[in-house]
């Protein structure tokens, strides 16, 4: 709006204004806006993390605690695990927290990340339509549950976005022998929240992390159909971007935050985070 008003003002005065004066005013205004745009902070780090930790509210909760002991501002970018690791690989962030053990191992082995620490775990659950017409609730292992859905050709929403959840789901299908090819298997290509909403609208099954499920379940016409299979455990690791590859990273502040996450205080904060009275993430630092 300001731009519009300024433009009107300038145009109306144009004929009397000196060209130099005009361009000077112009650049002053532009400079003013650019200055407004860059707020200066003493110290900040960038953390790429998954939607499951951000959308559940955990990160905000933890950062509230961290702000009491540190002046470092933690800027959170929440994306899928694949993209988070890619950002770290390119050196666009200072540290990552993700949940895809195989991809993380590769990430460290290739020298992109250092000091991988396990922070916490939560678990995945299978959710489905209220009537559970594939009767997944009658079985106790995720392998059986998924095979029922596939055999009966029920709708199943996959994230399909190379996120940690997607990687995990593909790994589970692998136990069944082959990649899922039944007609009801649909890829949303979107985050967990969107995928859950799609499943709800389409009366489909889907696999979700417990955190997002608890945060959203009141707004969904879905029910939990399978949980507590050890195969569904979902471990989170924090890793620092290797300063040998990217010397510009704020390694000291990133390391301080990473160490805080696995410190007794950080772990206690993780354990005390609850949604609807339920613990979402179990601290797991050794």
């Amino acid at each position, binding site marked *: 709006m300001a731009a519009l008003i300024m433009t009107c003002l300038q*145009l109306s005065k144009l004929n009397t*204004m000196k060209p130099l004066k005009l361009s000077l005013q112009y650049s002053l205004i532009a400079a003013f806006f650019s200055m407004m*745009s860059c707020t200066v902070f003493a110290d900040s780090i960038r953390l790429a993390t998954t939607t499951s930790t951000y959308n559940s509210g955990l990160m905000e909760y933890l950062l509230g605690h961290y702000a009491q002991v540190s002046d470092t501002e933690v800027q959170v970018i929440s994306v899928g695990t694949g993209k988070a690791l890619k950002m770290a690989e390119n050196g666009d962030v200072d540290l990552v927290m993700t949940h895809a053990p195989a991809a993380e191992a590769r990430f460290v082995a290739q020298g992109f990340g250092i000091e991988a620490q396990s922070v916490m775990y939560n678990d995945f659950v299978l959710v489905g339509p209220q009537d559970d017409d594939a009767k997944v609730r009658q079985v106790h292992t995720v392998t059986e549950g998924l095979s029922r859905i596939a055999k009966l050709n029920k709708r199943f929403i996959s994230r399909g976005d190379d996120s940690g959840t997607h990687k995990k789901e593909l790994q589970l299908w692998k136990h069944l022998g082959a990649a899922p090819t039944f007609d009801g298997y649909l890829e949303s290509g979107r985050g967990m*929240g969107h995928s859950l909403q799609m499943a709800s609208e389409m009366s489909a099954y889907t696999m979700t992390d417990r955190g997002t499920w608890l945060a959203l379940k009141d707004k969904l016409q879905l029910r939990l159909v399978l949980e507590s299979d050890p195969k569904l455990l979902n471990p989170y690791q924090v890793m620092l971007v290797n300063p040998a590859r990217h010397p510009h990273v704020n390694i000291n502040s990133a390391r301080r935050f990473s160490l805080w996450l696995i410190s007794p205080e950080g772990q206690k904060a993780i354990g005390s985070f609850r949604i609807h009275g339920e613990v979402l993430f179990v601290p797991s630092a050794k």
Partner: protein
Amino acid sequence: MYNLWTTFSAALAQLWSGDPLLWGIVAVSFSVSASALLIALLPALTTGFMLAYFRFPGRWAAISVLNSLLAVPTVVVGLVLYMLLSRAGPLGDLNLLFTRPAMIIGQILLCFPLLVAMSLSAFQAADHRVLETAKTLGASPWQAFVTLLFEVRFALLAAVVTAFGRIIAEVGSAMMVGGNILHHTRNITTAIALETGKGEFVQGVALGIVLLTLALVLNISLGWMQSHSRVLRHGD
């Protein structure tokens, strides 16, 4: 389930209460888009003027490229800019990725072709006697250009309004190069994308109302400007 009306009224209440988080996000949108527009405006108008009034080799190629750029999706602009600004990219040392200046650059790239194309057609539609009349009455080339800007001001304002509408409503580039960081690069559109993903429809709707109101105001003023410039043309 979601009751449309309760969500809508809760959204209005949240806006009315002056929720600082919400209005902070709105402020990010406005400051980023206004900066982008201000920076792009004069170069774009000059380019449009050159294309309208000068014949040079490559002019048609330039116009074709420009018109093609109009059709480029915002995410593609975001992707290209992301790859340029990434630490692994050629401009990584500028340390701009995930900052507001990066979003501003993205929006400049998005509104520049639009501003050039619309000002080009405004200049082409302008009376060819404007420049001659100004010059014969003593105007320098720059003063004549400024006079021309004044004569086609309604068409140019329409271009500015359209460009502002495009960039403030775009999500692709802002999400890619801004990173949707709270208090820094979270603007109206990236916040809507995030909040709906979290199932927080109230805030999404509240921000949507802001955008919708803006679109309404912009379109009404655009209609007014267009009718006004038509009246003038009939009068001539």
